[in-house]
């Protein structure tokens, strides 16, 4: 993985010193909250329902064991013993004291981490495929490009006061594990007919109040021109954006209002100009960064066979591991979705347990997924049993990847000051209703995503079954959506009808799955059946 050089470290250390001074001045009364708020937000520090909340960047979801142990240390020392992984592959802590925040950032800086650009009108943490560098189906590791883009855009003056936040995702596989087209700018590394690597570009995606799936705007941008192209996209948005209306500031609104053909025309025009300025990454710089992401020294001649005598282990292998590009290795998915627990939450002790496993079995490499789980990307198949036993001892060996209990849920009204309704209790009730593993396996792939407000941090628009919590005259109410997807078959879920109370929405989900089980044909996932038969049979079962 990438390691800070002298410049990176100096920048992050200086930023800590700056924030320490800003915090001291706020506490001493030399700044009002109105003056201080934008400064703390630039360092990922929000004020939420119960305390300050600190969101820490995990670039493209990659961590090493030293960093994960530090996150555990922060949970134990400055928070209440746990952290929460988010749908942008970041981590956040919900019980932070302002007076501790500079010390936390200083501790993070010692392990090459920070909270910069995890809030505010900036380019947010760039998300990527959690299987990068390991996936059997990728054409290259996308993370060197993510790191180059991160470095080039961080503190870039043109991108420091954007009209609104801006989210980029990057993958290099035909399989989309990053909710690619739900981003403002979506980049997929592809090869052209000459075998050269470049980028397929999509723009104008996003969830929130007005959801749009990103439009394809370029089939192939040569790799060595991608920064010019990114600058062109941002410049067109920056030129037109409606800074007077918060509901129209995101780039998706501009792309929609202009029309994606006109938006693309203007981007191409800007691109032609920016190309002449020579601001793209030199090949040598790409190679310098890519060297940090060189594949680990995989052993050769390893056995591919796995002893499946223990049925619980065999079940876990079948559901929680994925094919690896290197023979004899597997990708291990660690569920953070225990039935009865809180999705994405992880204790300090569990962080340390995963860090130990990564160090011993996965070349010191850990990934965070936008689905709020963790990944050990490079595990020898012959070590899987030992890893499974250790995960089980840490309470992390649950089997439910992409099943009905692997629910994405935002923190909701239990923690978030923007929320209108609680999300986590709904996820817990659904998980308890479907807790039986045989029932989960019978239902197969079924992605439920729950948001506690229209901002859609829980990705409800992209759920096979989506749930949106709203406030109806001071009471929590839940709308049901069907048919969304955040995968390569991206689609926008549709609201089925009137909302439900807390118990009613769980019943509605169960009725929805009953229709699927009744109507499905051989090999169909829930989403396939929904797309074939449409919403009416589901509405009839739910509201009839």
């Amino acid at each position, binding site marked *: 993985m990438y390691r800070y050089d002298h410049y990176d470290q100096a920048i992050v250390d200086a930023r800590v010193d700056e924030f320490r001074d800003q915090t001291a001045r706020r506490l001493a009364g030399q700044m009002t909250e109105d003056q201080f708020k934008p400064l703390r937000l630039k360092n990922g520090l929000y004020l939420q329902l119960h305390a300050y909340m600190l969101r820490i960047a995990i670039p493209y979801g990659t961590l090493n064991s030293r960093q994960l142990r530090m996150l555990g240390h922060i949970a134990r020392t400055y928070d209440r013993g746990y952290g929460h992984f988010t749908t942008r592959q970041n981590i956040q802590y919900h019980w932070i004291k302002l007076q501790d925040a500079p010390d936390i950032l200083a501790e993070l800086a010692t392990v090459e981490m920070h909270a910069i650009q995890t809030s505010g009108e900036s380019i947010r943490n760039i998300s990527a495929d959690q299987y990068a560098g390991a996936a059997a189906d990728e054409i290259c590791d996308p993370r060197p490009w993510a790191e180059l883009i991160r470095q080039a855009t961080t503190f870039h003056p043109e991108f420091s006061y954007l009209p609104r936040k801006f989210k980029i995702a990057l993958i290099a596989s035909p399989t989309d594990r990053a909710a690619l087209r739900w981003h403002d700018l979506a980049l997929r590394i592809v090869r052209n007919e000459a075998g050269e690597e470049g980028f397929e570009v999509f723009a104008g995606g996003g969830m929130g109040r007005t959801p749009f799936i990103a439009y394809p705007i370029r089939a192939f941008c040569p790799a060595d021109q991608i920064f010019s192209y990114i600058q062109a996209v941002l410049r067109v948005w920056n030129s037109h954006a409606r800074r007077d209306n918060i509901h129209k500031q995101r780039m998706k609104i501009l792309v929609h209002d202009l029309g994606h053909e006109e938006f693309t025309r203007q981007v191409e025009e800007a691109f032609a100009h920016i190309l002449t300025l020579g601001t793209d990454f030199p090949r040598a710089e790409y190679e310098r960064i890519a060297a940090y992401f060189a594949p680990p020294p995989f052993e050769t001649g390893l056995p591919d066979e796995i002893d499946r005598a223990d049925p619980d282990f065999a079940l876990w292998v079948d559901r929680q591991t994925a094919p690896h590009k290197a023979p004899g290795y597997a990708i291990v998915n660690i569920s953070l979705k225990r039935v009865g627990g809180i999705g994405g939450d992880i204790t300090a002790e569990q962080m340390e347990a995963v860090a130990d496993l990564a160090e011993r079995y996965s070349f010191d490499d850990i990934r965070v997924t936008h689905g709020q789980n963790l990944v050990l990307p490079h595990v020898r198949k012959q070590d899987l049993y030992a890893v499974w036993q250790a995960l089980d001892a840490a309470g992390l060996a649950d089997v439910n990847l992409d099943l009905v209990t692997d629910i994405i849920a935002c923190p909701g009204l239990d923690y978030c*000051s923007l929320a209108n309704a609680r999300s986590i209790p709904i996820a817990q009730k659904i998980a308890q209703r479907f807790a039986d593993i045989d029932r989960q396996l019978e239902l197969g792939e079924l992605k439920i995503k729950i948001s506690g407000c229209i901002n859609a941090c829980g990705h409800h628009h992209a759920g096979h079954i989506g749930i949106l919590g709203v406030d109806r005259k001071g009471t929590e109410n839940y709308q049901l959506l069907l048919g969304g997807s955040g995968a390569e078959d991206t689609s926008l879920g549709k609201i089925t009808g009137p909302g439900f109370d807390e118990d009613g929405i769980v019943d509605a989900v169960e009725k929805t799955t009953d229709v699927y089980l009744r109507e499905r044909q051989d090999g169909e996932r829930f989403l396939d059946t929904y797309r074939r038969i449409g919403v009416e049979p589901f509405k009839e079962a739910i509201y009839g």
Partner: protein
Amino acid sequence: MKILTGNDLATGDVIWWTGSGWSRHVEESADVGEKGDEIAQTEAAARRVNGPYIIDASRDEAGIRPAHIKDRIRALGPTVRLDLSLKPADPTVGTWVI
């Protein structure tokens, strides 16, 4: 009744105006009547509270209860982690929120 709430500047703790100072316990809230804005302004300027705002609440035999669920969750803690709430030993406390 009208009560005044906000967060402690340094710790972020949820706090409630008692009539003479700030408490972490909603049941100690005072009815601020029409003086909420004035108190909020003074206390924020003195850095004794961050982001103060006035809410509706009711008083019954069980104590003071904010009108909106968001403020009841603020008063107690997350309903999904009652062990972290202000009343971790009371198993029925979650029903007070809902």
